[in-house]
């Protein structure tokens, strides 16, 4: 088969980039442990309170160490349950100091929801029967909206909360 010199060049570039991209995917998956956020950790979707992290008193922001926080979220149609404040009102805003390491753990009581802290890399699906978790360092100060980005029903657009990262 005769191939033009230029055809050889772009075929080498194309196949070469395919190999490079596959290597990057493999490196992320096998060396860096990148995988879906559910991590294979299961939970009873009809009784998420049976898991220590999702008991009503453990929801929302918890400080575990200097600059280390855990945020537990119970997602349901159409709300993110972040616990209650001292007055018994539902928490809708969590405040985290800049530079903190934050572990987000989310579970759903009903259908598939999304959990996206818009403007950051915190973006995961929350599937019934699984605990989704993602640890991140909040390096940029600002106000971020948590949005559901998996269509979950008629009230989907009303499902949000706020994260404030302060200096």
């Amino acid at each position, binding site marked *: 088969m005769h191939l*033009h010199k230029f055809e050889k060049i772009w075929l080498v*570039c194309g196949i070469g*980039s395919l190999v490079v991209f596959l290597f990057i995917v493999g490196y992320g998956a096998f060396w860096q442990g990148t995988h879906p956020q559910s991590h294979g950790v299961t939970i009873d979707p009809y009784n998420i309170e049976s898991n220590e992290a999702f008991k009503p008193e453990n929801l929302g922001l918890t400080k575990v160490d200097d600059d280390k926080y855990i945020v537990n979220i119970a997602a349901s149609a159409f709300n993110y349950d972040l616990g209650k404040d001292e007055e018994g009102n539902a928490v809708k805003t969590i405040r985290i100091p800049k530079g903190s390491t934050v572990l987000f753990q989310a579970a759903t009581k009903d259908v598939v929801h999304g959990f996206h802290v818009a403007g950051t*890399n915190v973006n995961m699906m929350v599937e019934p029967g699984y605990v989704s978790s993602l640890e991140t360092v909040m390096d*940029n100060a600002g106000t971020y909206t948590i949005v559901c980005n998996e269509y979950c029903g008629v009230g989907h657009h009303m499902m949000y909360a706020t994260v404030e990262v302060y200096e």
Partner: protein
Amino acid sequence: MRKRKDHQASENEKPNLIGTFISVMLLGAFIIITWFGAYALFISR
């Protein structure tokens, strides 16, 4: 008759692919630039 002769001559010539080559390389450069753009967003956030 003349047409047939031209056709035969063009089969022996190498096709001019310089335009195609430039287009393919530009497309490749665009894909690589956008990939690094997305990667930079991921790293900075």
